[in-house]
């Protein structure tokens, strides 16, 4: 037992081991909450051990470990909820947080005598076979060597790569979720990402290119990174874009490449299928279940199950196992992504999609691995079908507005002329509105692939996978010059 700086004199209850032995302490808190009159009390406990590294040119320039502990306590009463987070895990700290969450809903501990809490179920331990993940992950020696290998590989590609950076981030998280409906679950999560980016410069021309790769639940991820392939791909992109001209703005057909091209679906449609959006009344698809919202060529899913995919999880942050959720089937809307609060407020059943960045956020319905399913065409057939248009080989980030308008930047683009790829172009932005664009996705190729990314929304930044095969959008606004 150690002393908290923040509570010098009070009894301490520091959760340094996440296992079944926590049950009595958690049950005491849940029981207090229920006896105060709460419909449901949920406690989320978290420990984290993260590292981020940066190599620039031929040196390691930053090594940043970070350690964290914290708890999020959420109380439901009717359709309302109160949420309090704290990293004071002493008993008085947790009691204060619970009382504050109860107080938000007008409840006071000890005010009602009926204890309707029947205790927690046995621990559902999704982390039991993951206890060695942290130790099995690359240490600083191994990680730094890999990053320097990457920047060296880039240096060997071209002398005009004036800025060469490689980064590695390891995020390890151990969580316990307990709720007064009996849920008691533990998990360990391991996410690793590597990123490389360059600035190529020749005379007055400059181009920037970047790639990111990520996995979940794979301690060997960094060890297995094919540096040579990644460096070659990045250099090729940087060199092609070095002399690219600006794209001319206008309406045109667009072919979006697979993998990260899926960000269009994520931004334009996926967010609008989260019950978080339905609750606010901002989704245009609110009344569209079993209605045609997309071209019949489009079928899309969101799931948390694919091996090693960045958005996969054994349980969501509300202790529920993730599902394979079919969102759209042949253009018809089938299901929304829902969490505990989403079910309460909209009636859509939970899908194991309650996610949060960490203990300081209440869980919300969020995407996991989201992708458009593949079709029968080849990528070449899509390009051949376009007379004058744009091929978006690599996408940058994007965002979606509160009523469905979206935009995202094209990192590496090429004009399509007479069914063939033509000159590289830069500065393109794809702009549209989900409801209008989905019916215009008319062709899907047979090369589905996924890419890792981070998604920021109401419950913080979470790891996700976006994905799609090559797709063709018949007409979209391309911002340029």
């Amino acid at each position, binding site marked *: 037992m*150690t*002393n908290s*700086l923040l*509570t010098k004199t009070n009894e301490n209850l*520091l959760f340094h081991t996440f296992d079944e032995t926590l049950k009595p302490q958690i049950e005491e808190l849940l029981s207090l909450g229920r006896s105060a009159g709460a419909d449901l009390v949920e406690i989320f406990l978290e420990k984290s051990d993260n590292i981020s590294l940066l190599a*620039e040119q031929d040196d*390691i*320039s930053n*090594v*940043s*470990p*970070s*350690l964290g*502990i*914290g708890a999020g306590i959420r109380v439901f009463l009717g359709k*309302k*909820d*109160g*949420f*309090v*987070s704290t*990293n004071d895990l002493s008993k008085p700290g947790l009691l*204060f*947080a619970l*009382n*504050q969450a109860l*107080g*938000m*809903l*007008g409840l006071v501990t000890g005010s009602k005598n009926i204890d309707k809490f029947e205790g927690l179920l046995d621990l559902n331990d999704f982390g039991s076979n993951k206890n060695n993940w942290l130790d099995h992950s690359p240490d*600083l020696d191994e990680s*730094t060597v890999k990053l320097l290998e990457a920047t060296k590989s880039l240096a060997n590609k071209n002398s005009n790569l004036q*800025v060469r950076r490689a980064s590695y981030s390891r995020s390890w998280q151990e969580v316990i979720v307990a709720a007064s409906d009996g849920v008691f679950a533990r998990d360990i999560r391991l996410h690793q990402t590597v990123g490389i980016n360059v*600035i190529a410069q020749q005379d007055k021309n*400059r181009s*920037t290119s970047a790639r990111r790769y990520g996995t979940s639940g794979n301690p060997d991820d960094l060890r297995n990174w094919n540096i040579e392939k990644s460096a070659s791909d990045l250099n090729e992109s940087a060199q092609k874009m070095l002399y690219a001209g600006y794209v001319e*703005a*206008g309406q045109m057909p667009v072919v979006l490449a697979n993998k990260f091209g899926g960000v269009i679906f994520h931004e334009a449609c996926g967010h609008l299928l989260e019950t978080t959006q339905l609750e*606010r*009344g901002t989704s245009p698809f609110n009344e569209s279940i079993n209605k045609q919202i997309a071209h019949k060529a489009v079928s899309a899913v969101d799931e948390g199950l694919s091996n090693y995919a960045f958005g996969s999880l054994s349980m969501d942050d509300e202790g529920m196992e993730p599902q394979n959720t079919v969102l759209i089937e042949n253009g018809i809307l089938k299901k929304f992504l829902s969490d505990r609060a989403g079910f309460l407020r909209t009636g859509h059943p939970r899908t194991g999609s309650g996610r949060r960045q960490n203990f300081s956020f209440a869980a919300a319905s969020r995407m996991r691995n989201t992708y458009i399913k593949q079709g029968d065409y080849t990528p070449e057939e899509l390009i051949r079908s376009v007379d004058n248009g744009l091929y978006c080989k690599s996408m940058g*980030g*994007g*965002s979606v*507005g*509160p*009523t469905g*308008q979206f*935009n995202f*930047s094209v990192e590496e683009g090429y004009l399509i002329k007479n069914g063939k790829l033509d000159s590289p172009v*830069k*500065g*393109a*932005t794809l*702009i549209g*509105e989900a409801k209008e664009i989905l019916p215009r996705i008319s062709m899907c190729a047979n090369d589905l692939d996924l890419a890792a990314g981070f998604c920021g929304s109401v419950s913080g930044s979470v790891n996700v996978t976006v994905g799609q095969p090559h797709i063709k959008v018949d007409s979209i*606004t*391309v*911002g*340029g*010059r």
Partner: protein
Amino acid sequence: MNNSITNKNRLVLDPVVLTGLLKRYSNQLEIKKWDMGASSSNDISVQVQQGNAKQIKGSQRNSITLRVWNKNNQVGITSTSDLTSEGINKAMIGAIKASLYGNANESPEFSPLAKKELEQINSEISESHTIDELLSILSIAEKQLIDTHQSIDSVPYNGLNESYMERIYINSDGATRHMKLSQSSIYLYAKAEEENKKPRSAGGIRINSNLEELDIQSCIKETSEKLISHLNYKAIETKKYLICFTPEAFLQLISAFSSMFNARSIIDGLSLMNEDSIGNQISVSNLNISDEGLHPENIGAFSFDGEGTPTQNIKLVSKGILRNLLHSEATARRFGVKPTGHAGLGAKVSVSPDWLVISKSESEMDKDESLSVIDTQKEYILIDELSAIHSGVKASQGSFSLPFDGWIVNTGKKTSIEAATVAGDILKVLKSIVKIENKQFVTHQGISPHVWVENVSITGEA
């Protein structure tokens, strides 16, 4: 219910306790040189939906970042939110391990200004309010906003927040900094829909050091007026236009390219400027840009940065000429100047602006004196707010392509634009400014007048 957001029985960070603990562990681990930045926050936010409480959130958070120098003068850091004695000891061991990978040739040092007297910043801590009070204020604001126009059906994104923050910097050389502040903020993002038209939205935000002085009525008025003005919209042609950036939009644009003034970005080759750019003309000659963290309107001002250096006001661009850069200790040492109070804390220290202030140099003429947002008869695009800055700006190349909210204005008549993006090159924009208006406006992210730029590419959907 009468639940105050502060727990009177819980003290937050105590610099004396922290210093004692760090001295003990550094002695045990034979660390002669160390420093530490700590932060703590205690806040509550409420959201409402059609008059009812939707979600109420509270948080108490503390974290520290420890930095140690090993015997080879390599620097290592570790951050932790586990502020138990065990957690702090673990963090120090982590920092020592990380120091083995520090770049000895580029080690940061203590700031030479870490013990210099600080400017006095008004940091009166406001009284906290009950959750009932916060909910009541926000519910009334929501209703007032919805009642301003029949087409406004909801305020889907809203929040009223009250925060108490403190920051500490301590080093083994005896420097100790400690400051607290309080902040209240409101945001209202409303949606309106008319028959056979697309839903439209607009928002406003206000920040103050206390709830009593938070200008909620002006936030309601601004949000409502903006939203009503967007109800009748049209698509515009794709072509080059005369543009007027509102103060908010111009500050967004300059902030997105603040790596131009950032010595760290320049050293790393990530800026449009280079080490010889000081003294170069980078814009029209009547533009001034300064960073004024100490400005009295900067509600969130701290009097020192992550390295303990006092916050300072710095003239970056004067009469269009780049005069100074923002520095940490390490970048200042390399450039042969003093740190400017814009550093974070790390093995590689980041640099960022505090509070940008844009102004017109009175001694210089505008290219087109006739322009005024009040009564210009020419056709122009009024850009109110830029979006997707994280994805649409290539700071190291100078290019941008950004969606925006705004209006096309013709002979004084404003019509909302359905959807459009503005694209260009920041250096070209700075040299194509044709008018900087005299009147400055305070926004939540800085101060600026309206700024006019000619021949800017706009992509519309017509």
